[in-house]
């Protein structure tokens, strides 16, 4: 019990705050069908991005895994604050903690109002969650796009 507490407390000593690079290559919006209701139309956004971040300083003796996620932050036309995770990755070893990734979103990116029309540009942020073997979960931010990326008008077909 005391040993567990000591291990949990010791991880407060490690305060790494690694930073990386993140850029959004392109954003496209397409018309699609809603998932649950085949008759309802909805717009989906597809984001291409590049991540280049070395998160290995976050690994110490009480790090079980990292949960790394990329989220889009934007306010919509009804001033609702939205944050949507569009990509994530679980890292379990220090050797895998250098993330070099170019690709598109893993999860569906949709708007609550079903349309991205006139929605202000979105910021994209790379965040991480350090999960210990025992103790307290911590969170941090590794990268943020330097300028917000706009949502273009919706296309009806892939071109």
């Amino acid at each position: 019990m005391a040993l567990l507490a000591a291990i949990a407390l010791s991880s407060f000593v490690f305060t790494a705050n690694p930073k990386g690079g993140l850029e959004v290559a392109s954003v496209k919006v397409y018309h699609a069908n809603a998932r649950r209701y085949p008759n309802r139309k909805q717009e989906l956004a597809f984001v291409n991005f590049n991540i280049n971040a070395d998160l290995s300083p976050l690994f110490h003796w009480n790090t079980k895994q990292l949960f790394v996620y990329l989220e889009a932050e934007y306010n919509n036309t009804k001033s609702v604050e939205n944050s949507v995770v569009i990509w994530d990755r679980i890292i379990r070893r220090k050797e895998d903690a250098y993330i070099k990734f170019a690709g598109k979103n893993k999860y569906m990116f949709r708007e609550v109002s079903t349309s991205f029309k006139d929605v202000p540009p979105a910021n994209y942020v790379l965040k991480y969650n350090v999960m210990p073997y025992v103790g307290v979960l911590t969170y941090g931010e590794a990268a943020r796009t330097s300028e917000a990326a706009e949502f273009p008008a919706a296309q009806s077909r892939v071109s």
Partner: protein
Amino acid sequence: MFAEELKAFRRLGLRHVLLQILNFASVIASGLMIWKGLGLITNSESPIVVVLSGSMEPAFYRGDLLFLTNPPNQRYQTGDITVYKIPGADIPIVHRVLETHDTPGKVKKSQCVWLSLFLSMPLNSYDRPGITPMPKQLMLTKGDNNHVDDIELYQGLEWLERKHIVGKVRGFVPYVGYVTIAMNDFPQLKYALLGGLGLLALLQRE
């Protein structure tokens, strides 16, 4: 074999037995007090939970113990691991928040009560500048080990709301909770343990 114990039992008399029962009752009562006190501080109906499924592997396995808080003046963020209970579902679920959509809201009374209890703010401070109103949040969750999000688990609801959430995971101890899972799977173990404890309490001599 038990003759000796029985003799000792008779010698101690009724008064001793009553005293031991009283002791036992006070242990149970203080346990309950600690549990409810923790619930009050963390603002969560169940501040300690045991993981029952593998949907958050490799982060959490069956039997891991989680410590939760649910501060009423904090919004939930993406990446937070929540424990939620949908009305109609009997077991709470531990999953990570994937989407949040916040509509600006008003300061709630429960928020003021909690703040006045633990940060000693005046109770009728509904429009104090220090207190930011809590947004009305619509959330979507997903288990790390699942391929799709949780919409199918919401029993017809489109989004998860604050009122469904029991708390967010703050701390973690591996495997300790496995005892309770074992006791649920093998009820004999539970009765044996409880009976053994009770007998021990009764037969204990000062």
